[in-house]
């Protein structure tokens, strides 16, 4: 295999992994945009999405697309309930209170999953919903069907999200509330509904990410959301937290970097590099790639 072929292969793998990070990062960034909260429980929504997919497939034995839709709807609901119960009461509290709640929720979700007998603490094999076949796109460069699924679903969801945010009434309300809550209310926009909608949207995307990840890796476990969740958070910060294109670009960069490092034979450093990236951005360009130099409102 030539170097060029190897680079191309790792690029494909990196983009597929990056798409999953991007799907999770979108939720981080949208929620941050609207209530200035890093929802550290978001990685757990990704995990719950994967388990929802697992149960839907094992119970109803339905194909991947309806499974995705049902799991996304379920996690959208989880997102709404999480915001209503845990974050809404803290909306006017100091930011650190909501942040600590997020960390607590993340632990709570993981422990609850272990508590459910059907989930438990040991890994479960994710059902084979699609045939994993390999296509040779060029000599020695392969595309597997799970990667194709990941790319197609991720692109479709991102296009749908773009459409929702820019062309629907709810999307416009989201952008208005993100920019100026008071002014949005003066337009007649219901801020609570808009925040719920944002959580629903972000959680649905995380659920899709969870299932795609599970299809690729074949295994799911109660703490599977921690690492991808943190990496998606780094992606969102890298892209510029609050920026939707930023989350996508950040996710891709992280996925590609991670694969490049593994391919170069340093896979033990894979996770460390993500955090090195975080530290470097925070030092050099804290606003991220697409971030404006945000003025903190007083």
């Amino acid at each position: 295999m030539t170097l060029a072929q190897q680079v191309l292969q790792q690029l494909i793998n990196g983009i597929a992994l990056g798409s999953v990070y991007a799907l999770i990062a979108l939720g981080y960034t949208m929620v941050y945009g609207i209530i200035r909260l890093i929802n550290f429980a978001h990685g757990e929504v990704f995990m719950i999405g994967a388990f929802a997919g697992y149960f839907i497939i094992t119970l109803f034995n339905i194909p991947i697309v309806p499974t995705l839709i049902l799991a996304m709807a379920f996690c959208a609901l989880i997102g709404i309930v999480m915001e209503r119960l845990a974050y809404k009461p803290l909306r006017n509290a100091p930011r650190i209170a909501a942040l600590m709640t997020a960390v607590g929720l993340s632990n709570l979700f993981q422990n609850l999953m272990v508590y459910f007998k059907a989930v438990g603490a040991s890994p479960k094999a994710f059902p084979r919903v699609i045939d994993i076949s390999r296509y040779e796109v060029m000599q020695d460069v392969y595309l597997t069907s799970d990667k194709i699924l990941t790319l197609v679903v991720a692109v479709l969801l991102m296009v749908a999200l773009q459409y929702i945010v820019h062309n629907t009434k709810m999307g416009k309300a989201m952008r208005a509330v993100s920019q100026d809550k008071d002014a949005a209310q003066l337009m007649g926009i219901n801020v609570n509904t808009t925040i719920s909608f944002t959580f629903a949207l972000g959680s649905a995307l995380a659920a899709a990410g969870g299932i795609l990840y599970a299809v690729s890796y074949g295994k799911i476990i109660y703490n599977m959301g921690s690492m991808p969740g943190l990496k998606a958070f780094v992606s969102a910060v890298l892209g510029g937290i609050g920026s939707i294109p930023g989350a996508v670009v950040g996710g891709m960069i992280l996925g590609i970097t991670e694969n490049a490092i593994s391919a170069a034979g340093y896979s033990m450093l894979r996770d460390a590099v993500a955090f090195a990236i975080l530290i470097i951005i925070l030092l050099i360009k804290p606003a991220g790639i697409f971030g404006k130099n945000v003025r903190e409102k007083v």
Partner: protein
Amino acid sequence: MMLKIENLHVYYDAIHAIKGVTLNVQEGEIVSLIGANGAGKTTILRTISGLERAKEGSIEFMGSKLTDMSAPEIVKLGISHVPEGRRVFTSMSVLENLELGAYLSQNKQSRDKNLEKVFEHFPRLYERRQQLAGTLSGGEQQMLAMGRALMSRPKLMMLDEPSMGLAPILVRQIFDIIKEIHKQGTTILLIEQNANMALSIADRAYVLETGKIVMSGSAKEIMQSEDIKNAYLGGAVHGS
């Protein structure tokens, strides 16, 4: 009476910002509320709009009690509020800002008609309709904030210091447009530190000092009061 505020008290935690304000606006009037920085003018408007909560007292608009209503419900009743500092959505286009002003309107036809009307008042906004609101000048942003507020076809339009930070020629232009909007049937509640300008177009006025109304009457009476001349009009009326 269109708007009836009685014995209004508003607090920010321990700060007693509004201390028993009573104020009325009749349909068809231009009423001005003047007072120095920090007197509580913005707080009163924000409380009418449902952005702050009254601790005591009542606010009624055409028979509906506003004090327990949410901001969107209040907009629906026909009150629109041009906030202090304009507060346009800077990363959205002029057109998107205006569309948001008609957020509660279901009828696309009437929305298009309103848009046309807003562009008649503000031809400049039509020229810049595709531009991001953040790239507009201060005067244009003020026009956009007013245009946006008109998109809901308000019965009562409340403006919070529309002249703030604008060059005198622009201030005159903005005030001419306020008069025009009023002539076409919208009642106006106007807050200003620029008392001269506000009193020149108002029918009646209230003077607010540290959360209390210290004087009210016809705009003419207030303009001629010695205290007011000294405190708010720089000692000279009409800039002679």
